[in-house]
């Protein structure tokens, strides 16, 4: 469709570990429209980051993208050579990572690190790249930008570093911004500020955002459309209002019920009974069945497919088989 910026079809990224095969991303398909914020939620280890990194082909051995298409502006990124996809990384698609404390290189100044991306993707020399870096730091609301540009990451607070990361990510006007748990490591007040900043920037730049989080509160605030992942697969997807009002999959319902009033409560995701399955020994049938209170015989035998359960709302669960 014309208004799709990114379309992923049947993406599979596996890890060939010493202990065996880990299907980190196991047949995932979704789309991101222009200007849309896609929320990707799920417990830790369900394959959110690997899905995101597969888009840019940033998977290190023993991981490998086995199959799938990642169509970005009509080009299949999976088929691109390293030299060609490098021109997309940091330019039309850029990433903000979870840990502002460790995501910036400790031995280079903030200005050097932002300027590096600018010089690489825009035809600017060192002096102008520096000017642009200062401008970007101002854009993301860093005070004393003309001093901070010469400071090292350790001289900044976590929130300021994450702002610097965002400055770096948006410095080349990306069409898609992948934010992998951008606020998880931050204090609640700083979290709110960073989310506010991202929302404003997104509106100004008109970029699409793939917002990865395990925090449903963040999704509710930011996302237009939501996909829920479990054990490398999408188990439910819908527009944000529909999903929160009318969640179908027992896993999503569990996530919603365990969402506490206070946003950063580490315990909240543990309130779905049981644990994320060991990726080396996936259960038979529906991967969620050992933890599901609705599990039926068929759930243990055969895997449900992701299907429309009502208009614009898909779920992979035997409870809804034959609903439409």
């Amino acid at each position, binding site marked *: 469709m014309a208004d799709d910026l990114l379309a992923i079809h049947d993406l599979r990224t596996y890890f060939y570990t010493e202990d065996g095969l880990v299907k980190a991303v196991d047949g995932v398909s979704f789309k991101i429209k222009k200007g849309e914020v896609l929320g990707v939620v799920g417990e830790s280890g369900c394959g959110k980051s690997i899905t995101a990194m597969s888009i*840019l082909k*940033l998977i290190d051995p023993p991981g490998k993208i086995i199959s799938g298409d990642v169509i970005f502006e009509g080009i299949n990124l999976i088929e691109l050579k*390293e030299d060609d996809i*490098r*021109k*997309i*990384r*940091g*330019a039309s698609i*850029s*990433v903000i*990572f979870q*840990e502002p404390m*460790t*995501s*910036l*290189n*400790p*031995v*280079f100044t903030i200005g050097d690190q932002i300027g*590096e*991306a600018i010089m*690489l*993707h825009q035809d600017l020399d060192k002096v102008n790249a520096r000017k642009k870096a200062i401008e970007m730091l101002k854009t993301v609301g860093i005070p004393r930008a003309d001093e901070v540009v*010469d400071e*090292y990451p*350790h001289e900044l607070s976590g929130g300021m570093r994450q702002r610097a*990361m965002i400055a*770096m990510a948006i410095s080349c006007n990306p069409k898609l911004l992948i934010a992998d748990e951008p606020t998880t490591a931050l204090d609640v007040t700083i979290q709110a500020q960073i989310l506010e900043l991202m929302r404003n920037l997104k509106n100004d730049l008109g970029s699409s955002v793939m917002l990865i989080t395990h925090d449903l509160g963040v999704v509710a605030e930011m996302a237009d459309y939501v996909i829920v992942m479990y054990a490398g697969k999408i188990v439910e997807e819908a527009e944000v209002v529909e999903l929160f009002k009318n969640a179908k999959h027992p896993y999503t319902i569990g996530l919603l019920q365990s969402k506490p009033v206070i946003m950063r409560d580490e315990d909240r995701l543990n309130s779905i009974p049981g644990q994320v399955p060991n990726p080396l020994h996936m259960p038979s049938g529906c991967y969620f069945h050992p933890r599901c209170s609705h599990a039926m015989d068929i759930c243990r035998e055969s895997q449900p497919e992701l299907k429309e359960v009502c208009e614009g709302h898909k779920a992979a669960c035997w409870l809804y088989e034959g609903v439409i």
Partner: protein
Amino acid sequence: MPGTITKRGEMMRQYITRRLIQMIPILIGISILLFFILQLAPGDIFSTMMNPHMTAEMKEELRHQLHLDQPAYIQYFYWVQGVLKGDFGDSFYFKQPVTRVINTYIWNSFLLSLVSFILSVIISIPIGVISATRQYSRFDYFFTVVALIGISIPSFYFGLLLIKWFSVDLKLFPVSGMMTPGVNFVGMEKAADILYHMALPCIVLTLSSVAGLMRYTRSSMLEVIRQDYIKTARAKGLRERVVIYKHALRNAMIPVITIFGMWLPGLFSGAIITESIFNWPGIGPIELLAVNNRDYPLLMGINLILALLTLLGNLIADITYALVDPRIRLK
């Protein structure tokens, strides 16, 4: 910004001055300790010197002249008195000023050690980096084995092996020494002659230090390439070469560079075994000679220089650490 740079330079100057001043009491302490430890060893120069022409009276007379008949602390004060005037005394064995003996041999050791040090750095760092970026590849396994051999093969054995192969069998290199005897080369020819003699001992020393440095670089690099900022660098669209040799190497070298300072005394201390095998006129065999002959003034001189170099090496390590890692502040 020029302001911060001068401020940093000023702080650095103060720091270095303070550290240098702190070295004085440390060196005094070390000299006392050394002096008395040496005194603990039984016997003196005359108990090992088998000179048939020397009568017991003559020995007593000489002992008296050298203050060897005095208590250790008196001897120490005599020694300090001399040192303060720049006189480290005369070597018992060489019957020459200690400074002259050291000066004659130490630069030969330095030359050999420096060349092999530079070679090891040039060889081992790229290998360490490539081994890390291609962990478990054939390249990595090959150099793991080389490192294992380098670490476990004794230098006397490896040295003799090289002499057998390259000097005796193939006649490619001289068996020993530092210059061709009986020929007076000058300028470039002299340098070439020395290099020619240096080749084999240099290989022995280089192999053993390459092994360690290579593994050290490799593990440091492996640690760094797992870091988040490397992912950030890749996600920016940088070439893999830039990611590795700019973003990763700069961080991986921090612990490696700091050990270079620690190597400073090693550049001057002489490789006793290798120098002995190749008859290299370095300070290593002289140290052995001094120990065997209870040549206290010479031992004190050599050890004090090495102590000073160790302290300087530590200081250099701390300074380089602060220079390469912006997170480190000199205090």
